[in-house]
């Protein structure tokens, strides 16, 4: 936990290694023997947690209100659209107030911590935990308390989505320049995206897509579309579609 304080140093090591070792970098995992047939289940879709900001010179995340607003609108729309491709009935978890909102925020936070742990300790080849790198082991959970969120929804599974984009501090000027020239996104800093399917009765994580270097500039509608596709790539239960994945 204290080590998280040095997260950016770890990240340097991580990013440095992936640039030379892209093929070895896992980005998704599924619980062994988990299968989700299309049209067989109801999935509770939680509101995505989206944050956009810049990276200060000290490497800390500084939220940026306009970027976050743009991302929330664009990505929100793209994901709402993309839910049609999940192959199963999707129930949207509506906005909550009071203790329920707090509870949801807790689980969203826990989800992103779990996803980050999976990246650090299973996906990243140089850093696997011995107990997690054994064949067929994909063993993380949010705990059975998550069933509370699903009460009265009739949903067996829950889908959590998290994105956080930190643009390098010179990114803003570059972004403005390139946006004027037609929307070429400069991807710098860190672009985290996690999508995870959870068994709502046990809290077990059944499927995870997690990447610290996602594509698509979420501040633009096109970039958000691209990000949404990337997030849900390989979703179990999605009916096979010949050719390109489409939202």
């Amino acid at each position: 936990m204290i080590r998280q304080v040095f997260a950016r140093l770890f990240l340097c090591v991580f990013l440095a290694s992936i640039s030379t070792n892209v093929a070895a970098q896992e980005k998704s995992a599924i619980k062994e023997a988990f299968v989700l047939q299309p049209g067989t289940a109801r999935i509770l879709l939680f509101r995505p947690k989206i944050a956009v900001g810049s990276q200060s010179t000290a490497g800390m995340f500084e939220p940026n209100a306009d970027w976050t607003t743009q991302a929330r609108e664009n990505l929100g729309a793209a994901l709402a659209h993309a839910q049609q491709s999940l192959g199963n009935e999707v129930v949207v978890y509506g906005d909550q107030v009071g203790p329920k909102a707090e509870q949801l925020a807790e689980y969203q936070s826990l989800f992103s911590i779990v996803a980050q742990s999976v990246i650090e300790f299973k996906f990243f080849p140089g850093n696997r935990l011995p107990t997690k790198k054994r064949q067929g082991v994909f063993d993380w959970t949010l705990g059975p308390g998550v069933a509370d969120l699903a009460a009265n929804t009739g949903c067996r599974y829950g889908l959590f989505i998290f994105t956080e984009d930190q643009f390098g501090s010179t990114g803003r000027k570059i972004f403005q320049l390139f946006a004027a020239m037609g929307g070429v996104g400069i991807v710098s800093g860190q672009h985290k995206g996690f999508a995870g399917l959870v068994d709502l009765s046990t809290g077990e994580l059944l499927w995870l897509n997690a990447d610290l270097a996602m594509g698509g500039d979420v501040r633009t509608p096109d970039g958000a579309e691209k990000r949404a596709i990337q997030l849900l790539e390989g979703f179990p239960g999605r009916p096979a579609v010949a050719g390109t994945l489409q939202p």
Partner: protein
Amino acid sequence: MKKRLAAVAVALAGLAAPGATAVPELPPYAEAYQPQGTDERGIWMLADEDERVLRDSKFLIGDPALRDYVTAILCRTVGRDRCHGVRIYILRVAAFNANMTPNGTMQIWSGLLLRVRSEAELAAVLGHEFAHFELRHGLAGFRHQRAALDIAAWAGFLGQYGGAVRQGAMGSIYQFSREQERQADLLSLKYLKQSPYSAQAAAHIWERMMAEADATALGRKQKSTRYNRVPYFATHPTNLDRATYLADLARDVPARTEGDAAYVDRVGTWRREFLADQLKLNDFGGTEYLLGQLAASGWSADLLYARGELYRMRGHPRDLAAAADFYRAALAKQAELPEAYRGLGLALLRNQQRAQGCEAIQHYLALHPSAPDAAMLSTMISQ
């Protein structure tokens, strides 16, 4: 809409003269643009999400009396028309900062409430932030696809994300230019001029903040790089010129109530909490300076106790002796300060003065038998 635009334009034009020696009259207030209904935003409601998160933040100090008091000072400063619709959030963060978002959310950090010494000083800071808000300084460059309007088209601007308050972080989202800072200063002076508060307070705060940053650096044997250390100054670059011109402009304005006794009284027990946060920052130099400033009108028992804690926590042999003296002085002022007995006992014990230390601890336990560390302390003094 055109009428509003005209009013805002008048307001801005009134500030155009640089280096003016007199403080001109305050213009009438132009109401903020309200979005005409909400667009379809898809399946989740995004409106005001950030303020909702702020409202639910665990860092929020939810004391309505404190919030109402601060709001009242703001209203007295900028007038009822202007303060109507501002929502103040006081957050428990041990650094000096305040900022305001275009939808009227004002965040104030507890470190700021600790450092201002009077209602007038608080009024000066709040007025300054409000001036940025009134001048719509945060809007430049915001791209939002609505019917293209004027600089007042801030609809959809949702404010700071996620109640993310980070101690020592660069607080504000906006990069204000020096010109904008100057405009905000001038406008806030206008507020103060027609308020019950003294306009001279403005210059004092900046001076003390700079001196505190110097003291912090000195305590760490570093060269002072004043402006980076204080989050407020990351976006409000302060220089000597600024303190000077503020003082100049305020000179002609008749001195009025400072409200320092009232301020200390109303902030009340919160000051002890904020001091406790400050003491845990491992900033001996800055905290010592701050305590000295707060004690300008006399060392109260609370301040003496805090000083005792400061020295005891640094813990060098001479510090421990000094701490014991401070605790005793605190007790001389206020005998019912059980924590001072605790501090005194611990300082003495740590300085190898066992008999006296045990006596002080026993006194503490007698006064406060249900102290959270009672069992621990009892074990330490029994042998």
